[in-house]
């Protein structure tokens, strides 16, 4: 027995994609004007157009937290928002928090506590934690664990992540 199936809907001529326009983003204190189509996510704008690849893509569906950045100081999943919605916004990525030669306190704590293995979820973890710090939230271990649970880590570095964030929270 067999039956036939066509995978995508038949169409009366395919609609042509829309054109690009300038989008002004203040990324890590620098103003950049990118030529972007409206369908470009903030995550892809950062990675593929601004070539800031510190922000990671783990799912593109808001399910993993790898793409977390700070927009006007707030944590968001950059894969779930379109770049054009952020004209003139202040965006802080992992590259804006510190550099390998000059790490931020959170970044240093992540190194000290070995709060990562492969490092792929790490920029998102650190941006999330920075958001918690900015907001003055997360004081107890239980709160940190709960509020950091939107950031998956397949390497399972959660113990180190908790210890690193706790250390910086406690110092504040």
């Amino acid at each position, binding site marked *: 027995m067999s039956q036939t199936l066509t995978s995508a809907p038949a169409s009366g001529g395919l609609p042509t994609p829309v054109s690009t326009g300038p989008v002004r983003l203040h990324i890590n204190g620098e103003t950049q004007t990118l030529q972007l189509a409206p369908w470009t996510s903030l995550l892809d704008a950062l990675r593929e157009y601004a070539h800031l*690849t510190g922000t990671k*893509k783990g799912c593109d569906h808001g399910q993993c937290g790898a793409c977390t950045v700070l927009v006007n100081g707030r944590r968001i999943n950059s894969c779930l928002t379109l770049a054009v919605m952020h004209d003139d916004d202040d965006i802080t990525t992992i590259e804006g928090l510190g550099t390998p030669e000059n790490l931020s306190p959170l970044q240093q704590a992540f190194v000290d506590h070995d709060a990562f293995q492969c490092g792929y979820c790490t920029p998102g973890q650190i941006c999330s934690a920075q958001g918690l710090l900015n907001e003055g939230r997360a004081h107890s271990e239980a709160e940190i664990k709960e509020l950091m649970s939107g950031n998956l880590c397949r390497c399972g570095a959660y113990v*180190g992540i908790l210890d690193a964030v706790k250390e910086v929270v406690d110092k504040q």
Partner: protein
Amino acid sequence: MSQTNHIGKAPSRVDGPLKVAGAAHYSGEFNVPNLAYGYVVSSPITKGKILKVHADEVRALPGVLEVFSHENVPYLAWFDKSYKDQIAPGGSPFRPLHAPDITFNQQPVALVVADTFELARYAAALLRIDYEQQEHETNLETKRTEGYAPGGGKIGFQPPPPPRGKPDQALKDATHSIEAEYAHGAQHHNPMELFTTTVEWRGDGKITAYDKTQGVYNVKNYLMGVFGLGKDDVRVVNQFMGGGFGAGLRPQYSVFMAVLATLELKRSVRVTLTRQQMFSIGHRPNTLQLVKLGTNPDGTLAALQHHALHETSQFEDYTENIVNWSGMLYKCENVKLGYQLAKLDIYSPQDMRAPGAASGNVGLEVAMDEMAYAAGLDPLEFRMRNYADRDQNVDKPFSSKKLRECYQQAAAKFGWETRTQEPRSMRANGKLVGMGMGGGVWDATQVKSAAKALISADGHLTVRSATGENGTGTYTIMTQIAAETLGLPLEAVTFELGDTDQPEAPIQGGSWTAASVGTAVKNACNALGEKILKLAQKPADSPLKDAKYDDVEFVNGQLRLRLDHDQAVVLRDVLQASGETQLEADSSAMPNMVKQNGYSLHSHNVAFAEVEVDEDLGSIKVTRVVSAVAAGRILNQKTARSQVLGSVVWGLGMALMEETVMDHKFGRYVNHNFAEYHIPVNADIPHIDVIFVHEDDDIVNPLGVKGIGEVGMLGVTAAIANAVFHATGKRVRDLPILLDKLL
């Protein structure tokens, strides 16, 4: 000069600053000029044929460069062997875009390439493909009687040893016996980084593939075979991998697609799989196990039988070692082990962290718990009574085995003595409390590896080997080994990896990297050391004039006589005085078969877990885990601990969360995303203690290391399952233990 003993210490990762600052470049993060983007189209049917790909409609879109499918892919290698990678199992490897036949759901059927990622994705969604659908079968339950023993199998596969003693009679005569079936569904590796390949077109038919892989040479050889490329035409690079867990052992179709498009379009192309497509690249197979155990009056094992059946694809005999471990973990004279595969309309499974062992371990260690209860024994005491001092599978002693010490130290740390044996006998915080344990065994393997060491006149050492860094700490431990061998501080050493321009290293798997590449690094540094000694001996008044290499040591930036530390020269002075700008040496390392032949080489572990179960809701919370590992010498306490912590998280996921659910009507995984394929998150993680029990072992390899990436995962899943039984009195034998199974 600072202290230069580095091995066994706990330095932070040398690549840590790059990773935490977002400055480590993974394979999708190379900004090559004039890059095009490919998006893979996956089959919505499970079995059948493609009738037509309506590519022209999509090709007509401005910005779309090409649509590749079996209809227009150029002539590629014809024979299976060109597609076989280093660890391909028996059978015919899957060839992407090769034929109209569909043999599994989500099979990649086309690649749409466009100027931007968004356009490629859009065009891929519009691509019409006509299929003829046929009946499929994806349910292992239907194949219970159709299992077959695989013929060959991939490298590392060992068919179960023949039965020993009288396993059937002994089981019949046993004082107590149990028999139970254990099952788990498919599980997917799901590293956080999506499979991505950026292929740079270097002109004139030459390419560099920045590929997500655990083996750059494996991918290079595959590409040479499939695309008929010469050795100098293709370079494969992977300096950072966002997690592998086995998913990157074989070349994935992302690299095939990206290279195909690059060669055809003569333009650089990046292909990134979606998270959904990450469920079409191999998995831990759905496995059914039958375990039968019997005991003698004194609580020793009278008989042990363990049989496993797991799924594979129609085209390959994927194999793993599931039951063999059961013949060596405990002492038992009457043993029967069986292993079978069954073919389904799925993609080939793929090694996933502690492949085989993780599955078989759950069967064995839950059965041991059941047996302990049936025999009226404490589960730890039961294991002590059946401790194996020899590997009875091969009738050899272990080169080293401190599992007993693992049991003792972990039990003490955990407070096992506070446990009351009766199920449902412990409570806290209004919840049922359970304590369980499980242990495991994994291979200590060394395979052939090569490395190159170079030292510049200013005393900076660079060591290279084409191994990988997927979170295991390779950069760091190799830097430690190299620095200690030549008596340098860590800052004076750079270790480079993941590039086929470097000396060949094996695929990064099997927990063998530390032993294999580590030994090659040590050998290369020693080869360089011999050259340095020769230079040091050139001056007529050299204090080392008549020394042999074995008489000297490199410590704290000096080269000195082992027996007279005052007879020393400063390394940097030697190099500078020599007038050479750089010295270099190559070396490789192989296992010492003569030394190893009389021994069984294995690492061991045990895990103790405590759970709290809310009886009204069925919810399970793991509250504590203690894991003890005996894996020879630990090179880096910090990174090794992290590997074991991660393993515990994996064991927890396998016990309570992970399962890729197949809808057999469609032959399709239905929870193929991170919202529905559950992995542990931070809030799920209990307090975890890690204990390393040191073993002195100069038989396994000159470094005395056994590898720890996989052994730490064993025992954990069973410990949690056994703790759930202890808490509730309910024995759940199919993983994961979801709350509905307790209600």
